[in-house]
């Protein structure tokens, strides 16, 4: 018999470590052709950090995103980033990027002021134009001109226009010896997931028939990527809840998965036929433009929602992941025996 159930979970996901230091660095250089080379340490494994860090750099400079080239290829030479994990990059790295841009602007101001025999404090930026306050008509240069002048010299003083930046959520906080209190995280993201399942009581198979997941992300810097991460988190969460395991159940380890095909990830057919995602924005004071990370949390929402839905459907709480058919059938048997 197929039984339907609905379950819900609420997730609170920390992003950025406040207690033990969690810095990232960035550098940005004005290249000879007027583009900017942004060097970051964050590794983009598909989550889109390169894209959003370019966005932040472009916004801070007031130039189109096409002008920003980003590289994080060579670990040996890249600025340091503690890593692409724990949803920390969107909270932390943009600060490093924005600080690097400010530093670069300071260097540009100094270089231009030197050319014009002016005071660096009187140099203003207007997108890709740099000018002397009060004398914009006579004293203005485009970024391309500055790039060519500084990098190739000629009639100008040579210069290497690079800015660097670093940031962490807070200095190290030792815990309070009296209370044990410690501000552990830089920011928290909030999510909610509602799953509807259909449990086949004869085969033990659980189908997720509908799923809704909503995340409060501070600011959706790139809504396409936020969406990909909410629905991508579902993939990991569903696998965790229902199918993925590298542990042999029975009777010996000989039955452990050996290859990819023995390890059951959700496929197109396992995805809920009806899938809804939602994004909520409440700008976070610690984030650049209010942004914070969340994506790891999106894989934490579905498992408890699915387990709760199974409980709703068949009246048993599954306390081991994944809830494979074997686990479901054993739980049903145990329930019957106890009745």
């Amino acid at each position, binding site marked *: 018999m197929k039984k339907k159930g609905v379950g819900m979970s609420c997730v609170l996901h920390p992003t950025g470590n406040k207690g033990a230091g969690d810095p990232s660095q960035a550098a940005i250089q004005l290249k000879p052709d007027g583009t900017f080379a942004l060097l970051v340490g964050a590794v983009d*494994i*598909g*989550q*889109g950090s390169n894209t959003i860090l370019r966005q932040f750099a472009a916004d801070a400079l007031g130039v189109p995103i096409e002008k920003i080239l980003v590289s994080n290829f060579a670990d040996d030479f890249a600025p340091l980033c503690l890593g692409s994990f724990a949803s920390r990059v969107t909270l932390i790295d943009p600060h490093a990027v924005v600080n690097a841009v400010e530093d670069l602007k300071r260097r540009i101001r100094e270089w231009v002021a030197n050319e014009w025999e002016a005071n660096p404090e009187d140099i203003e930026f207007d997108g890709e134009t740099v000018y002397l306050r009060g004398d914009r008509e006579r004293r203005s240069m485009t970024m391309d001109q500055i790039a060519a002048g500084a990098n190739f010299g000629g009639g100008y003083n040579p210069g290497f226009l690079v800015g660097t930046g670093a940031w962490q959520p807070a200095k190290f906080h030792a815990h309070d010896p009296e209370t044990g209190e410690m501000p552990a995280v830089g920011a928290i993201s909030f999510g909610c997931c509602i799953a509807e399942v259909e449990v086949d009581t004869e085969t033990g198979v659980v189908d997720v028939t509908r799923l809704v997941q909503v995340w409060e992300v501070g600011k959706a810097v790139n809504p*396409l*990527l936020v*969406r*990909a*991460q909410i*629905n*991508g*988190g*579902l*993939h*990991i969460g569903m696998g965790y809840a229902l199918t993925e395991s590298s542990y042999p159940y029975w009777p010996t380890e000989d039955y452990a998965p050996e*290859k*990819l*095909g023995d390890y059951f*990830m*959700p*496929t*197109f*057919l396992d*995805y809920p*036929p009806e*899938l809804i995602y939602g994004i909520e924005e409440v700008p976070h004071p610690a984030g650049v433009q209010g942004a914070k990370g969340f994506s790891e949390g999106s894989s934490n929402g579905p498992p408890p929602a699915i387990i709760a839905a199974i409980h709703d459907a068949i009246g048993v709480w599954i306390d081991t992941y994944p809830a494979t058919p074997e686990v479901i059938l054993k739980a049903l048997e145990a329930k019957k025996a106890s009745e």
Partner: protein
Amino acid sequence: MKQQVLTFILNGEEVAVLVTPTETLLDVLRERLQITGPKRGCDDGECGACTVLLDGEPVRSCLTLALTVEGRTVTTVEGLMVKGELDRLQKAFYERGAFQCGFCTPGMLMVAKSLLAKNPNPSRDEIRSYMAGNLCRCGSYEEIIEAIQAVAAGEY
């Protein structure tokens, strides 16, 4: 092992390459011809990342012995672009964010290409079942379905 000459049409051009009888099409494409669009996800026929079109039909190049494609036509993701223009599916995937890491994308595109060639207006369920053999660890299934639907609806 003794090498033999294999001749076939790759992305519209005839190629001849020395191969051993045990090499797979994926080995030959990636290692001998530097065609790295098809990805080696599992090398075991399970993930679909290595999918190419053989005479228009999707096959797993990791399970296809290279010598069996003698004289036949192979299209990889590199062959989807025509005269510098991305294929409609490529545009839709790109604009709709139908991937995160992109590792599965070359395989997904080839299967989707074959689906639309056979069924220009597939339903959501038809897309799900036709694409079911291709895995995406980043979980971009929903976005992939939408991108294919958008192409079918003539948006690209």
